[in-house]
């Protein structure tokens, strides 16, 4: 069990390093590794959200291209690679599937330190991992409800009854992730 955890943690740190190599030296080998892991997941995510295979392929390629182009904006003290890629995929999904714009919050003002604190990075990556484990450990029914929400696959009555979402169950995890983020934003 612990070894899976360690492996996951190491994997997270690896992805962070790959994105750094793209940013610093346009490293295509690092990109190929990220692509191999994430592109099929993004494609699956888009298909489960209602895209057909052709559109999902197209969008997954675009999402990975955005990752390359915006590598300099990735802040590993605020998000894991998977989280950052999720936000890019989600925005592409709203644009391509729902034909809507997605208003984004104003960016935080740029700080003085260009490099995020390593302790913050490590803690955030760990926290993301534990959040993933907490979701995996939910009873099937609850987990499916959360997954459906993220695939935009909730019926109207399910949306109306969002109180039924098992947010309480993973609240302690969200709370911890929140404390990390608050700290990282300072």
């Amino acid at each position, binding site marked *: 069990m612990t070894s899976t955890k360690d492996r996951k943690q190491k994997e997270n740190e690896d992805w962070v390093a790959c994105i750094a190599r793209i940013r610093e030296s346009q490293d*295509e080998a690092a*990109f190929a590794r990220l*692509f*191999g892991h*994430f*592109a*099929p*997941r*993004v*494609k*699956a*995510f888009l298909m*489960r959200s209602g895209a057909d295979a052709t559109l999902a*392929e197209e969008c*997954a*390629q*675009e999402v*990975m*291209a955005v990752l390359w*182009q*915006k590598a300099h*904006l990735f802040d590993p003290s605020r*998000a*894991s690679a*998977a*989280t950052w*890629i*999720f*936000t890019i995929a*989600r*925005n592409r999904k709203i644009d391509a599937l*729902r*034909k*809507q*714009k*997605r*208003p*984004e*919050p*104003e960016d*935080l003002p*740029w700080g003085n330190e260009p490099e995020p604190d390593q302790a913050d990075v490590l803690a955030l990556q760990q*926290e*993301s991992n534990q*959040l*993933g484990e907490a979701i995996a450990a939910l009873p099937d029914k609850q987990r499916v409800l*959360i*997954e459906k*929400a*993220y695939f*935009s696959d909730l019926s109207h009555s399910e*949306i109306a009854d*969002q109180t039924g*979402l098992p*947010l309480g169950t993973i609240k302690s995890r*969200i709370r911890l*992730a*929140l404390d990390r*983020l608050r700290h990282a*934003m300072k």
Partner: protein
Amino acid sequence: MTYVQIKHHLSDALLMAYSAGNLPEAFSLTVAAHISMCDECRARLGAFDAMGGAIIERCGTAEMNAGSLEATMQRIRATGPVKTAAPARKCNLPQPLQDYIGGDLDAVKWRSAGMGVKQAILPTSREATARLLFIPAGAAVPDHGHRGTELTLVLQGAFVDEVDHFGPGDIEIANEDLNHTPVADIGADCICLAATDAPLRFRGLIPRLAQPFLRI
């Protein structure tokens, strides 16, 4: 431009729906504007985005087409480096709202909604409506209920209703159970961003007759 004194925040359900990309555009705009003003909700959104990251990791895989990586590299070479957007200039409105107005508060094309109240409808998808409301100091928005959900974000000034006092950055989440009469604080004119997913329901006859014309 963040406000430490905010006491009315977004609900978990709204943050999760925004993170998942399930809100109508008008609601997303209101949520994005609040987060621009509120570090607390920005951090909470980060936690919900992290849930999305966990979902991406565990949603399985779909095989990419042959030659997909090379095709993506070609996309990247064709696009070239992207410029980072210039940092937002100092302004009295959150950036996402400026994008919809096409400028600052001075650029808003107000239309009278009667009794000194003015409004401007912003261009969003039709599932829900976003509007700016200008309520003169001490004036009231007619007593109304809601068929759906109404989000009201205070941008300047403050208002008071049956629920509480709402100041800059505060957001009120009203549903079908709430009939309220927001009254602008006497100290200053109040400017709000309001999003609704169904027409408001006014209790007096005159506002009800005027409703189809005013689109409020």
